């Protein structure tokens, strides 16, 4: 049975974030945790960067790292945690980023630590739109009402007098997914917990779909709940990729 995983929390939002150096004017640090992958943090100073999070006294679990819309191709990165801000432990094996694609790192088990950091070797003009560290909530996907989805285009088609067609593309496609979940009471608690982090369904979040693809998404609408079973709850969940 396939699963989907929702990552509704980002400790960069709840913790205190510091980034080495000063960002370029108009590209503030807040943009790396504003749940928008459209707007960049940038720094023209060539130096190693440390994206540091202090969660304070109450720490959230973390088993997921996403870095979106970056230019870290060819750079060495480290993802670490600490309880004293002095001794750091690798959360994942250090790696050299091979492209500018979305960075996804997941842990086999969630960890709870006060301090987390992502370090980046010195490079010219680093930029990224979002750094997301949080915990995933996974749910089995029902088979009888199989996952469905389609890509939503952003294309306008016009037919000419002569009968040919032309298209005007206003943006890339977006993925949409619809899942049917059949949750036990305990799973429903987890689901409700995940939804609670979405601020009345207004926040986008990262999701790993049934095929294992991770992307930034939002709810296409509030989950549709059917209490048609004595011990379980049917939930229909529609997701729409956020660009």
């Amino acid at each position, binding site marked *: 049975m396939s699963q989907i995983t929702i990552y509704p929390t980002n400790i960069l939002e709840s913790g205190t974030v510091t980034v080495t150096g000063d960002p370029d004017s108009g590209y503030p640090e807040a943009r790396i945790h504003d749940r928008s992958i459209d707007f960049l943090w940038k720094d023209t100073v060539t130096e190693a960067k440390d994206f540091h999070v202090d969660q304070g006294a109450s720490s959230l679990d973390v088993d997921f790292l996403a870095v979106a819309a970056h230019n870290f191709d060819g750079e060495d990165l480290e993802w670490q945690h600490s309880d004293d801000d002095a001794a750091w432990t690798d959360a994942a094996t250090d790696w050299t980023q091979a492209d500018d694609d979305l960075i996804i790192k997941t842990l086999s088990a969630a960890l709870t630590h006060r301090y987390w950091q992502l370090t980046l070797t010195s490079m010219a003009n680093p*930029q990224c739109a979002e750094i997301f560290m949080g915990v995933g909530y996974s749910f089995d996907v029902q088979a009888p009402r199989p996952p469905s989805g389609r890509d939503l285009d952003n294309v306008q088609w016009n037919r000419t007098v002569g009968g040919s067609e032309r298209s005007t*593309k206003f943006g890339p496609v977006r993925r949409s997914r619809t899942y049917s979940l059949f949750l036990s009471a305990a799973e429903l608690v987890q689901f409700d917990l995940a939804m609670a982090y979405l601020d009345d369904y207004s926040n986008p979040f990262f999701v790993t779909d049934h095929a294992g693809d991770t992307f930034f998404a939002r709810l296409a609408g509030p989950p549709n709940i059917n209490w048609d079973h004595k011990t379980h709850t049917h939930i229909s969940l529609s997701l729409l990729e956020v660009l």
Partner: protein
Amino acid sequence: MSLSAYNVTRIDAPAVEPIRLLTIEFDGLTLYLCDRIWGSGAERCLFDDQVYEPLILSWNTIDHGKIDPIDYTLEPSGAGFAVDNTMPVGGAANFTALFASHDPHYATITVSEILDGEQVDVAGAAANIDFTEYTEVDAGGRVAVIAGTITVADMALGEVGYVYKALTMPTVFKIDLKTSLNNDSYLDKTEMAVCGFGDGIDEISECSNGIFVQWFHQTTYIMAINCIIGGNKTQVHESGFASNTNYYLTINYDNTIGDYGQLLCAIYTDSARTILKETLTLDLPGLMPELAYHYVLSSLNSIYNTDTNLVVQDMEMETFPTYKGPVAADKIDLFKGKIEDFPSMATDRVEITCSGMELDIAHRFPVSICNTTDYAGADPDDIGKMLPVVYGQARKVPALAVDAGGKTTIVTDWTDTSPGNSGTADVTDGAYLPSGAFILQIDSEQISIASRAGNTLTLAAADARAYDSTTAVDHDLGSACAEIQTSYVYTVAAHPVKAIDAVYVDNIRQTTGFTAYTGQTGDELAGYEDLAVVAFSALPTFLKQVNVDINNTLDTDDAGHDHTGSNLYHRWNIDRIASTSGTITNANNIIDGSLTTYTGFNSHLAYVWMNSIYNQNPGGIPIKIRLGIQCHTMLAGNTIAFGFCGQSLSVGGAAASNNFYQSNWLTLSSSFNTWAEVNAAYAMVTQSLGSGSIGVIEIYAEFEYAPEAHEDSADVSLTGTVTMSGNTTAETVIGNRVSADVDGYQDDGAGTYTGTPAALIERPDHILKHLLIALCGLTSAEIDATTYAAAGTFYNTNSYTLAFAILARPNVRDLAGRIAHQSKSIEYWAAGVHHLKHIPASESTDKTLTAHRIDLSQIWISYTDRANILNALSARHARDWSGCEDDAEADRAVVIADDSTSDTKYGTLVGEQLTYPYIIGAAQAQAVLDWVIGDLAAPRLIIELAGGYYLADIQRGQTIAFVFDADSALDKALLGLVTSTTDQFRVIDRISRPDGALQIQTIKI
């Protein structure tokens, strides 16, 4: 508008991916925004090295500015958009938070478009080259090829060898290789290429186009890099290399560096490439065509090869990502303007509307106002007026009296002794007079004034009254008092001019008594630098000194019995040409007072008919008349006759030149024995015999008259008075209206606007360019060079020029429209750039549209209103800018046009008379009027349509035609009202719609 090759490729495809870019230039901050994301990684939302942020939520229609099909006026362009107000931007918490530190109304808005911003990598990683995959041409068997090594052994004179394969040269690549050369014979030179690309299969040096790296040896070992473009080779080389020694080369080629690309070869002596021996750099001198073959070895000029031993090893090629997206030149600017309004501002979004730059430019005309700060002695009537701005050869430009001499009135009665030395006296308004010492004149007495404070004058401590040998007399309260000046200054133009050709006072041309200064360096009046001025020298007392010697009103004192005086003489002033007939040239010259110009008569009975404009009456009774003719040339067998007041003078018969002829005194008949009758008479000069050439310089008429009887006196004294008219001294001394024929702005020393240093700026495109750049502050980039150049050629061919004076602050948009219209052109702004489109006699079609380029149900057809039909028009032109009579301004010529076809169909429909005051020549005026009536003589078909980006390069003013088969879908969509290919339509409007469609409106030509 010409599109880049990249854009042409993009819009020709049915699928287009536009990305709108918005630049907001605040004072000290520029925001780069876009309407969506594109690209990824380092190229995310990146265009032309600038990150654009997707803050634009929506667009309104972009109106590019419609050209009115009836009067050709241009509507301003406009655009609108909505900005996300929730995101931090520009260092502020959100968009509107910027307004606290950046005035949004100051901002300049530019809307642009790029097509498919995505970068496409055509990359290949570094790869070792396997030489065995290459083709070997080696008739002499001197070349040995294995996978990583090519060895040349003892290649001899005349032998050819090369190794190549078909491989298109990448646009950016790096090749590493190792090579050595041994040519120890030293008897002759050898040349050998070790790597390169060429466009053919031969020795690489025989290719028409190619690049390569080579060894060369004769007495020393040399390495060189070469490019061949169109058979022409360019080489860079360095010597100092050793025989039989390995060198490690890194060859870089990048076609994006410089104008045409760069080839660079770094030569190291170690395999790690840390010890650099030489760097060879060659900037390609021209565009390199595609090179289809890669050479890893090639003899170059086989006749030089002697005992050549060479090794090429370890060649590795790396190609780099090639940017396939749009570059800066591919950006299509749609709009440039200023923020006009915020229809809605909320926490989540801000809606903004903008007006085009042309509205801003409309008020950028610099105006110099005649004011009392700069011109303390200005004529009050001229204060507040704009100093004229003049283009071309403008006639009778009214001058402003900027130093006219102050004048006011005394407020008490003066006796001939009081006030006296050091005394004081009040005037009505002292502000018109200097505050320091000056000479004042009241009636005919001059008074020396020591100073003025407010309205109070303090007379000089000594000899204040009866100054300069005048006589102290009583003056009545209210008598005019005025400052005596030595000169009076009139400003003809607010700028230096090319020339001042003639000066007029009250429309009478002056020949003496003034100095004209163009304001050009070396011809400036001190205190009036950079201004074109006329300075009249003044007599030491008030006299009407211009035009009339002294137009006095002399009285005789009644001192006794009647007395009859001797007859007096009066020279009659003939100053108006009423009409001419026959072959007459320069008719005015016969009465212009100049002895250097003449009127030409060249046909039998040709005549000039003249009279006097102003009433002349010296008093008494006219008795006799004497006529004079100053001839320039007289061919034998011709005579000229001058008739006036019943008398005539006929001269000629024999050839003569520069002869003066004068009649005897002839007694006037009873028909001409009063001045009223003389004033009513016309004079006529006729070529009474022959049809040869006669030149008449001047004609004269002189009257003998009996003065009025007056009472005799032993001591007859004359008390002259000059009526002080106007409110300045100058108006009394000089006249009411001073004007000048002016050749206006001249080009700078570099010929920036005309191409010719110091040339008169009079061609319409030159005038517009100068107006917009020099006066209104545009840059040359904001003038469309292409349409201006085409229009300039048209103006040159047709000898179109303009001449005008700007006498009041103009709206630059309207002024540009008038200049264009009177040059048979239309003008428009596109994204802040001014375009000028001339209307040729015969139109060529700029673009044809087929059914596949117009969207379904997006054609709207109408006609111009019947009420606009006119088929009989006239237009005045050739303006005298200060008028030729008493008019404020007057046009001296008229052209007419009618359309008989329209007249037959609709009846005669006469339009209000048009005026083309900027046009001098009748041919130009007629061409413009013919163009106008051609457009108004019948209702015209208006077709509006929408389509895709195929319409992107269509600009207003251009002509299009539709191409379709009879009864096809397009034929039907056009309602059968359009003839395929033949019917031409001019584009008069262009709209960029939010849905990505482009909509144009056209009108049938």
